[in-house]
């Protein structure tokens, strides 16, 4: 029996998908911002800190990067409140998890970037009398930032795609919107034929914007 497509039900509930995408983007921006701060702080600590700090950050990175995001999402939302007296909603829980998860990737990005800043530039900063903090702030970080921008952009797009996992906590982002429409209209095929291109288009739109930004900041 040939399948009869019916997209009208999807369009009727399209606000679920539209607002869902908006929330996906909001989750992405928040997690990317927090993850960047965490990742940057750890990267700086890793390249300039002592052996203990270095080992701690290395362990964190190894652990987080080898555990599925889904498991971490469950662990933070269901696991942690079961052992400590902490209350938080699903959205907060997911943002924290995604930030911590991507911080482990971003540490590596920033660390590699900091190590790629030529020793000579640091020397030039020393030679004009900049202090260690000033060298970091005015020389190493700005140069590092320009070096890592391409991989940073790719990481952010991956992060955006991974916001789909928030649907398991019923955070009403795009994938959850798809599931809701599926549960209420049973038009599962149609909904994924709409939602999938929405993810692809948004992901590439983000990448396009970040690439424009890269081009403007390029140093060579």
């Amino acid at each position, binding site marked *: 029996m040939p399948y009869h497509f019916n997209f009208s039900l999807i369009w009727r509930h399209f606000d679920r998908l539209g607002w869902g995408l908006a929330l996906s983007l909001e989750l992405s921006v928040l997690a990317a911002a927090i993850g960047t701060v965490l990742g940057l702080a750890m990267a700086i600590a890793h390249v300039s800190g002592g052996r203990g700090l270095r080992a701690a950050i290395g362990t964190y990175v190894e652990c987080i990067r080898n555990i599925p995001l889904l498991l971490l999402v469950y662990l933070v939302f269901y696991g942690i409140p*079961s052992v400590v007296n902490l209350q938080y909603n699903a959205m907060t829980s997911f943002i924290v998890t995604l930030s911590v998860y991507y911080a482990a990737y971003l540490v590596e990005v920033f660390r590699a970037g900091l190590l790629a800043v030529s020793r000579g530039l640091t020397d030039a900063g020393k030679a004009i009398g900049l202090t260690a903090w000033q060298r970091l702030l005015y020389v190493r970080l700005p140069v590092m930032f320009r070096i890592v921008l391409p991989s940073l952009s790719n990481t952010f797009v991956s992060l955006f795609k991974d916001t789909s996992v928030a649907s398991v906590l019923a955070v009403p982002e795009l994938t959850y919107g798809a599931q809701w429409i599926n549960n209420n209209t049973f038009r599962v095929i149609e909904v994924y034929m709409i939602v999938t291109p929405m993810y692809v288009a948004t992901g590439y739109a983000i990448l396009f914007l970040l690439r424009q930004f890269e081009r403007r900041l390029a140093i060579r």
Partner: protein
Amino acid sequence: MTGLETVWRALPSLWGGLAVTLEASALSVAFALIGGVLLGTTLVFGPWPLRLPIRGLVDLVRGIPVLVLIFFVYYVGPAAGLNLGSFAAAVLALSLFSASQVAEITRGAISSVHHGQMEAARAIGLNFPQRLIWVIFPQAIRRFLPPWINSVTDTVKGSALISLVGIVDLMLSIQQVIGRTYDPMPFYILGALIYLAINYSLSSASRHLEARFAYAAT
């Protein structure tokens, strides 16, 4: 009953799930390796009528979240006449995801070999497959291995998402045990440790491989 005892008792009920996780991951990694290397090689050497659709497909798949890809194959597949069981659909989705990564990794690795190598190989009279097998691939593999291991790790991690279409893998077994014991934390930690062990042994194995294939860079 302490948390440790609960975990110890529930452990046997996780083995089945672990086996499913390992099987799904292994199959996906294998399919992705074969498919991805073929696609990636074609992306470098193929004629444009072949390159263009492959480029499009690889970029498309890379743009889809793994979770959505799994749902897509699982739900939309049957409408396209693809009547797979849930396990096969999940493995197909994971394979597609991983293959698109492997294709990119392959393309990058091959491109890193100096094109003079291809010319030198042609000059001594090797035909195209011989040039690939004896000259290009052996040099490209050094660039291929490190990102490929990352993609294997991504596949193992991504396999946890197949629990969401009802496949009783390690992730879902853990959820089921928690449903019975109402004690989530020890089992999530246990699960994390098992995934960590799988991926960690994979990456240490890869370091040995890398050491084997390492030679002075030219």
